[in-house]
């Protein structure tokens, strides 16, 4: 009757779905299992009574499973010995009752456990997701998308496997194993001795195999990781691979890793799947031992035939929980290791996220001061050095300078994606660090250098700037960003779905949508980081005119390499190597004949006018 449960623990049948790229059942150990368990438990809290119910139900059905073979044996003995049918209906009905109660209890425990475990995992996923969002940008800089994804997919999945299927089985298996052993010893000491031989053998086997599989799977895991890497790059960079005719070498690389995965998989699985036939045979061995020993004992009148039947029934039921325990051991270890990695992320301190809502866009004047700011992505290398700048309310500040001078870095600091190492940045005289980040960012409208659009409709992409904006307002913003005409020419206009990375738009078109999105946000301070670098200059000029009107009286920061773009700025700040080299109005700077003048002139090099 517990053959059935074995089907679920059978590794062939893990109901595994394609979660992340290439999930394998990771077999590894948690470093602090007890700690991981303690962290996981609260997720199941609040269901205390339900959990008690589950335990009770499991108890009931293991008890039922234990008594059934006894009833079978008793009935057979009675029929053989008394040769009368007098008690048969009673026994049979009793048996039926026990069986059915057992089945019902099992179904009920499954139902309850499904709800409890999935709700707990839902909470865990939610917590992890919400926490991820509070992590600082530097976390995402140092972790690949795949790595982070894997926490929410593979690791949570490992926990899922353990709690949803295996926790109940673990309880049931242990209970029935203990129960069967006790029952055997109570029923017949001699026959029970057969179990004494088989059980240690079994444990030794599983431990032996588990040790090998663990190693095998670890190797498989790492070769899969490599293959994944090769595939991910080859696929996401396929256009470049093609253009540079690297197909052959990429393919060769792939073949090599693919073969390595094959070899590791065969090795790991040959060991892992060995468990099944071996334990099967052990089960047979158990039956054989009982039959042989039982036969001898029966001939010496020490046991009855019914007792042999009972024991054979037990023997069949005995092997499965044992086999499961072996599988469970691995699954639970994997789950704990997964939990550990999940909590590792949850334990990374987050940026503060509370906002006390005491800053209104309308109340902000928009005075921004950088005071002796220094910053470096790595401690050894300063990118911004002793940078001071005062932007008066309503001014347009242009940041120009050679590539890699640190312009984007200043934006990163102003929006507090990174924190300054020294000095401070103030808004209306208040240190930015005293303003909650969400509060601060709500004041800013940022168009980032790397355009990121979501794969939904154009309409939703622009609306991302202000969620409660009406369709009309979205279209108005698109018109200001000069995006309206081309959007209308798209197959479904504003309802056109953008493909992944918006590859069905031209580069300039993507930027214009990002600008529309920032315009819609209606910010107190606008930051444009090379927002129109791929837009042609005529369109750019029109966008600028619109922005100028829009930003009347609001502070804006504009980074651009086309100097024409920044000619009308109130202050032009020339940055080189993280330092200000010049500052002033366009005309002033030109007449100063310094670096800016030099930059400006380089636009005309080669032109013979």
């Amino acid at each position, binding site marked *: 009757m517990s053959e059935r449960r074995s089907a679920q623990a059978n590794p062939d049948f893990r109901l595994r779905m394609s979660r992340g790229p290439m999930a394998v059942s990771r077999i590894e150990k948690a470093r602090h299992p007890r700690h991981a368990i303690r962290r996981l438990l609260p997720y199941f809290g609040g269901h205390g009574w339900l959990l008690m119910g589950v335990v009770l139900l499991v108890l009931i059905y293991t008890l039922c499973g234990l008594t059934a073979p006894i009833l079978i044996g008793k009935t057979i003995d009675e029929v053989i010995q008394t040769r009368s049918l007098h008690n048969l209906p009673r026994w049979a009905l009793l048996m039926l009752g026990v069986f059915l109660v057992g089945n019902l209890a*099992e179904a009920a425990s499954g139902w309850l456990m499904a709800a409890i475990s999935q709700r707990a995992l839902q909470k865990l996923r939610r917590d992890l997701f919400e926490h991820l969002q509070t992590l600082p940008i530097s976390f995402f800089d140092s972790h690949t998308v795949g790595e982070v994804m894997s926490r929410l997919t593979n690791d949570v999945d490992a926990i899922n496997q353990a709690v949803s299927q295996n926790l109940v089985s673990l309880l049931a298996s242990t209970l029935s194993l203990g129960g069967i052993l006790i029952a055997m010893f109570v029923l017949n000491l001699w026959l029970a001795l057969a179990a004494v031989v088989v059980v240690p053998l079994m444990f030794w086997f599983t431990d032996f195999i588990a040790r090998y599989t663990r190693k095998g799977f670890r190797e498989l895991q790492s070769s899969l990781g490599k293959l994944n890497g090769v595939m991910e790059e080859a696929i996401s960079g396929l256009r470049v691979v093609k*253009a540079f005719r690297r197909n052959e070498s990429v393919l060769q690389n792939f073949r090599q890793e693919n073969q390595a995965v094959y070899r590791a998989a065969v090795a790991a699985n040959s060991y892992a799947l060995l468990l099944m036939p071996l334990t099967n045979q052990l089960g047979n061995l158990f039956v*054989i031992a009982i039959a042989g020993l039982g036969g001898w004992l029966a001939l010496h009148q020490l046991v009855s035939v019914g007792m042999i039947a009972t024991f054979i029934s037990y023997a069949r039921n005995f092997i499965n929980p044992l086999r499961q325990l072996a599988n469970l051991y691995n699954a639970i270890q994997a789950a704990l290791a997964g939990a550990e990695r999940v909590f590792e992320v949850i334990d990374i301190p987050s940026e503060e996220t509370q906002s006390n809502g005491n800053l209104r866009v309308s109340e902000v004047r928009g005075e921004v001061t950088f005071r002796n700011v220094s910053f470096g992505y790595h401690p050894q290398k300063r990118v911004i050095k002793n940078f001071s700048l005062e932007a008066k309310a309503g001014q347009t500040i242009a940041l120009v300078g050679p590539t890699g001078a640190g312009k984007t870095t200043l934006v990163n600091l102003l929006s507090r994606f990174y924190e300054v190492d020294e000095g401070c940045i103030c808004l209306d005289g208040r240190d930015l660090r005293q303003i909650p980040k969400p509060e601060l960012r709500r004041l800013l409208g940022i168009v980032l250098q790397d355009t990121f659009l979501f794969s939904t409709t154009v309409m939703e992409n622009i609306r991302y700037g202000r969620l409660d904006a009406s369709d009309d307002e979205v279209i108005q913003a698109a018109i200001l960003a000069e995006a309206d005409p081309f959007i209308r020419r798209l197959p479904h206009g504003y309802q056109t779905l953008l493909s992944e990375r918006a590859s069905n738009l031209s580069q300039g078109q993507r930027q214009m949508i990002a600008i529309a999105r920032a315009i819609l946000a209606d910010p107190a301070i606008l930051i444009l980081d090379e927002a129109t670098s791929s837009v042609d200059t005529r369109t750019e000029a029109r966008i600028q005119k619109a922005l100028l009107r829009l930003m009347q009286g609001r502070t804006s920061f504009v980074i651009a390499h086309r100097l024409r773009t920044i000619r009308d700025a109130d202050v032009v700040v020339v940055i080189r190597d993280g330092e200000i080299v010049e500052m002033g109005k366009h005309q002033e700077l030109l007449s100063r004949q310094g670096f800016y003048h030099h930059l400006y002139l380089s636009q005309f090099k*080669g032109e013979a006018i």
Partner: protein
Amino acid sequence: MKHLIKLLPFLKPYWKKSLLSLLLLVVVVLLDLTIPRLVQRIIDQGILANDLSEVYRTFFLMLGISALDTLFAIGNNNTSVQVGESLARDLREALFVKMQSFSFGNLDRLQTGQWMVRLASDTSVVQRLVQITLRIGTRAPLIMLGSVILMYRTSRSLAILISPLMLVAIVLIVFFASRMGPLFLTLQQKLDRLNTVLQENIAGVRVVKAFVRAEHEAKRFAVTNEDYTERNIRVMQFLSTMGPSLSACLNAAIVVVIWGGGVQTVGGQVTPGQLVAFINYLQTAMGPLLIMVNLANVWAAAMASAERVNEILDQQPEVLDEPQAKPLPAEAQPRISFRGVRFRYNGSNDGMVLDGIDLDIEAGQTVAILGATGAGKTTLLHLIPRFYDVCEGSVRIDGYDVRELQQDSLLKQIAIVPQETILFSGTVRENIRYGRPQASDEEVVMAAKIAQAHDFILELPQGYDTHVEERGVNLSGGQKQRLAIARALLTRPSILLLDDSTSSVDVETEAKIQSGLRQWLKNRTCVMVAQRISTVLGADKIVVLEQGKIVAEGSHRELLQNSPVYQEIYASQLGDAQEVEIQHV
């Protein structure tokens, strides 16, 4: 099913091994099935007949059988693993090779995320089916069948007695099996959606933060999370009903057998040993029931996966070498000509992206393309290396239509700096060397110098050996672009295509790149898309593109005189050139 059959050829190289595996399996099942028979023998002919030697004989016979059984089982195990993994490897490779053959048009329509899933999980789902079929998938039905036959032979009357219950079990199996497939498919869809939200949030984390949309995203995630959880609970409850109801069936059958068997034992038609064996067989027969239902699920999943795998394998690359395609001769002049070229992207319903382009680019010329956003500049550039095929007209290199050439030989002479910079994770040096891995270190430095990348590379923590992170996040925009330029230069092409490749580079650096290029471009043809007049000044010819048509063509001076569009562009950036000139003088 037809999708799985289509994948059958992948199994062909391993048919001998598969057959061996199945044969071993049949032996294992047969041996397994003898055990209850022998237990019956011990009881009936040993114990009840009071024959100890029969007990011994049977006991050792069983031991022998069990040992043999183990050997065969291990053999089956190993062969099935080998077949399954070989198949998975071959499938992965076939998919990968197919993807590599895809042209840009195919790529536009597929999403990277989906590909990874297809390559990884869909192949393993198909593999699992094969492996299971070679093991438990065949074993379970065989054991059931064997047990039923043996039950019938052990006691026909008892077998008939429980046949109604067997029917009920079969109905239950069919019911569960038919429900399972769709249930899991929807679960998979919900999961896909959950993952999409997740991936977007991680990839777009800066935008989410910049617009303070954490709450909004959390809500979005909560919805998909709830959806998925609810569905998952339903699936699991379905599963936990399935098991007990099937075993209730089995248990009822046992009770019936004991009752009916008891009556018959007393009546003398059935021996006690037969009764025990019959129950034993019954348990062995019904045991695999649940496995059968799970098998249905494996089959359903495999069919769905096979369909998705085939979807890729069946796709034809849009751009394919003609059978009689010739290589582009190495000494071919880098002359490019467009004749009446019209082009539109697949799936876009509005007008042509390129509409009647006639353009001649002589060998050694540098031609600049200017035009509004979305005018079709990138598209035009992509037609030269035949990333897409024209809809009408032709693109020729030295008189050869690109469609008549082997694309590889064509690409050998062309290098492109794409508008969107894609770098690979690896060192700076590896990235520059990407187009010509055998290039020497000096050549790498030379290319970097022309691209004005050398200086900043030296300032990086480990110079040329600095690691470039995923998507180049540790480099500034202009730095990435210059690496891409160096990468293209290093391949020493005869045709260089630059797609707005200095948009994030400051004007001074750009001017330096330009003057370095001028030297390098001797005897080479260059087509560059640009926005800044300063970039195009040095070009032999400037082409102005508007909505897919060429509206002006000529040198800077000519255009400045005759082309109103060009004048407008000029005014939009250099309107005050004179003013500077005046101050300068």
